[in-house]
């Protein structure tokens, strides 16, 4: 039974969500399921129980080319084509460049940037088979402006923004649209890790909420709402764009406490 809020606009569409078992990824999978899509959650993390009856799972390591090939071979065998690809796998490293080891640098680029590249590289041919498609990458407002101690993360998100535009240019003529969502603060395990576990976390969180024009930070469903729109036909003219979704945070100049 379809909830009144859902229109079923993705009925019968085939959607792969890389990182589909993560904080934001789960919400996207759930929404796609509710809109009638066939959903494949592709992740190294295990399938959350809540999704087990409604979505398929594929163990996908976004950093490995063979994994992307196997994932898309599976999709082709099951459905023959792909309509929607969401590249939501990502990690964060809370360090300056001096503190960041080369291994850490390469790991975050492997997941956040190479992962987006590889999964898309093998997903595009399946969209071509259908003659249309929508790819949604995960950038960040940190791809435009920096937060302290997130140097490598900021760099990966800037790379995803540029890759998004490049892919949109290359595949637009085939009716494959490519966009990126640039979240601000979203309540996920990654955000909890960012806040840390020492000191007065609650007042820190309150201060962070207060700096947002909407006086809260986002929840995964806020992200899923926009991913859902970009995935569907309502967004047919949207491509190559970076969609900042941050409760107004970066609309402001820094807020001095006057």
């Amino acid at each position: 039974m379809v909830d009144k809020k859902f229109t079923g606009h993705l009925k019968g569409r085939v959607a792969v969500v890389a990182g589909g078992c993560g904080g934001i990824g789960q919400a996207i999978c759930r929404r796609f399921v509710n809109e009638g899509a066939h959903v494949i959650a592709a992740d190294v993390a295990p399938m959350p129980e809540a999704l087990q009856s409604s979505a398929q799972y594929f163990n996908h390591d976004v950093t490995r080319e063979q994994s992307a090939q196997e994932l898309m071979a599976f999709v082709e065998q099951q459905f023959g084509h792909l309509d929607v690809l969401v590249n939501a796998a990502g990690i964060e490293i809370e360090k300056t460049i001096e503190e960041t080891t080369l291994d850490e640098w390469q790991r975050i680029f492997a997941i956040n940037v190479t992962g987006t590249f590889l999964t898309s590289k093998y997903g595009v041919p399946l969209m071509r088979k259908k003659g249309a498609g929508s790819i949604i990458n995960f950038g960040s407002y940190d791809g435009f402006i920096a937060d302290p101690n997130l140097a490598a993360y900021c760099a990966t998100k800037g790379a995803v923004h540029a890759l998004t535009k490049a892919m949109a240019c290359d595949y637009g003529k085939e009716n494959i649209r490519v966009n990126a969502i640039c979240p601000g603060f979203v309540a996920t395990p990654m955000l909890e890790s960012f806040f840390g576990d020492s000191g007065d976390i609650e007042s820190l969180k309150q201060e962070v909420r207060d700096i947002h024009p909407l006086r809260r930070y986002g929840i995964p469903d806020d992200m899923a709402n926009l991913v859902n729109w970009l995935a569907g036909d309502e967004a047919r003219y949207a491509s190559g764009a970076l969609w900042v979704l941050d409760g107004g945070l970066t609309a402001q100049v820094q807020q001095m406490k006057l």
Partner: protein
Amino acid sequence: MQLSGKVALVTGGRKGIGAAIVERFVLEGAKVVTCGRGARPSDMAPNIDWVQADVSCTTQISKLKDHVATHYGGLDILVNNAGVQIEKTLVDTSDDDWDILMGANAKGVFNAIRSLLPIMASGGSIINMGSVSGSAADPGLALYNASKAFVHGLTRSVAVDHGPSIRCNAICPGWIMTAMADNAFAVANNPVAAKQDALVRHPAGRFGTPADIANMALWLASNESQFVTGQLFTVDGGLTASSPLNPSLF
């Protein structure tokens, strides 16, 4: 002496950023004309040419143009610096506020460029004063923010329509320590803490000075920037490169 033999007009050169630009241009060898709504300031150096003119008034700007044309035969550099700030949200803003603020910040820039561009020499440089607030909002400064976005847009249009003979760029200052910024801290609940909080948000570790903006204005006025046009140059000590979160929180 990067501006030897050049003629420059800087609007609003009585104090603050405008005065620093006037001073620097004079040091670099330019003949400098500046203007303001009041009479010539008593402490102004004698080699600076003061004309009483309100940029929002088309007639007065036209007279200013005649003055420049008659006494200098033309113009090389135009700096549209004159501007006002009104600390109100949109619903609190009156028609008079609109006339005062948009008159100076928007119509003033339009007036000055429309009037003076025709007497500018080929290779001339127009420098507008935008703001970081023209790209992202400061609270309670609705019309000011909007007026600076107007300046940013007009900068690009002038560059596109009047190249290659004239270049047009804008400077976007952040927090510059002028009387305006001092007043903001003075009314804070805790002025010392407020100032410390604001400093932490600047990767450069300090606020800007009018001279920092004059440095940028000089570069944009000089031949060093002869391939530069239609762009916005942020001079803010890194303020807007970082997110609005207070870095001292983490």
